[in-house]
């Protein structure tokens, strides 16, 4: 992110908080959904995450990448919400209470969503239709009103871009 935005975020500037939200709101919501499995709880977790980030902004070091810093707050917030919900609705399965499902892949989900959000719109929609909606390239072409070859080239470019953006995830 722009260094100036990060500096302004550090002193609590509202516009900078909004810019941080615009960049990381999707990944935080995705991570929260992955851990909590509920849209309402994930929305609460997302709001709490950015509120906590704003309150702790002065501790953020602009020399370091802000993504992992936001991720750490989001992960902790989702776990706290999961545990508070577990206390309200006790489960006989203690493992379920202690370890939210989806926690193990939280970092990957955060990073994949971050990468997806960085794709150009025309590539992103092809990836979504292909993977999430399980459409063939012919079906995507019909839906978008473009030649099948265009869908294939967008899909290829998108996957190349995703591989490049996510290479570090596998390394970690």
């Amino acid at each position, binding site marked *: 992110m722009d260094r100036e935005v990060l500096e302004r975020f550090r*002193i*609590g500037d*509202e516009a900078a*908080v*909004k810019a941080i*939200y615009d960049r990381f*709101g*999707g990944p*935080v*919501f*995705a*991570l929260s*959904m*992955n851990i909590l499995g509920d*849209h*309402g709880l*994930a*929305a*609460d977790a*997302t*709001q*709490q995450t*950015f*509120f906590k980030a*704003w*309150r*702790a*902004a*002065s*501790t953020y070091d602009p020399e370091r990448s802000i993504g992992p810093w936001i991720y750490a707050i989001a992960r902790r917030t989702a776990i706290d919400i999961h545990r508070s919900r577990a206390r309200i609705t006790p489960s006989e399965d203690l493992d379920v209470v202690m370890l939210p499902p*989806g926690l193990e*892949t939280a970092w*990957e*989900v955060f990073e*994949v*969503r971050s990468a*997806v959000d960085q794709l150009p719109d025309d590539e992103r929609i092809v*990836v*979504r239709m*292909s*993977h*999430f909606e*399980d459409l*063939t*390239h012919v079906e995507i072409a019909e839906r978008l009103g473009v030649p099948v070859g265009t869908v*294939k080239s967008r*899909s*290829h470019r998108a*996957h*190349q871009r*995703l*591989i490049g953006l*996510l*290479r570090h*995830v*596998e390394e970690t």
Partner: protein
Amino acid sequence: MNPEDPRIEYLASGSGDPAGETDHLDLIRGLLDQESIWAEPPPEVVDALMASIGGGEPPQVPAAKPRRRVNWTAIAAVLGLTAVLVAMLLGPLSGTPQPVPEAIVALTGTELAPTLEGRAAVRSTGSGWWIRLEVTGLPPAPEGSYYQGWVGDQSDAVSIGTFHMRDGEDPVVLWSGVSLIDYPSLFVTLQEEGKGTQPSDRVVLSGAIEGLDQG
């Protein structure tokens, strides 16, 4: 392997696989079909976030200093004083964030105040229903009077709080101890001090609460 598998496209493109990138696709593919990757946060999240932090600066955390001999009594006194000052200055900012609304209620002025308009964000919380009013054009309540929010109707109204608007048009946060699913209308009256606890007939603003999850 699916004929439309991106790995086939990738290999067919002549790019080769110099760094095991087709294996890397497996990690991506395993996540791209999950709902969480594509789920979008509701727009109310950012509205509530910005309302929570609006106009303030976050509490400052002092930078670490080199170690030296210290007077702990003096430090404790300074910290205590600082905590009091911070609490006084930032008290309104240091609470919990405002809830994400479950529904937005459109409010319109009545015949008494036809130019008024506003909205109310509502949400069920563990301690009751949180209601945040944003109204434009509502004048300060005259001395000796005040505004009062209600849910229900004139014959079965439950008060959700009072306010006066004498220092600006800041949003007003009210609370209801009864379910807004059971009392699905909201109105605001102008009340005179000392004239009882029932809603007056001077209704200035009203709206129907819709869109709440009945479950």
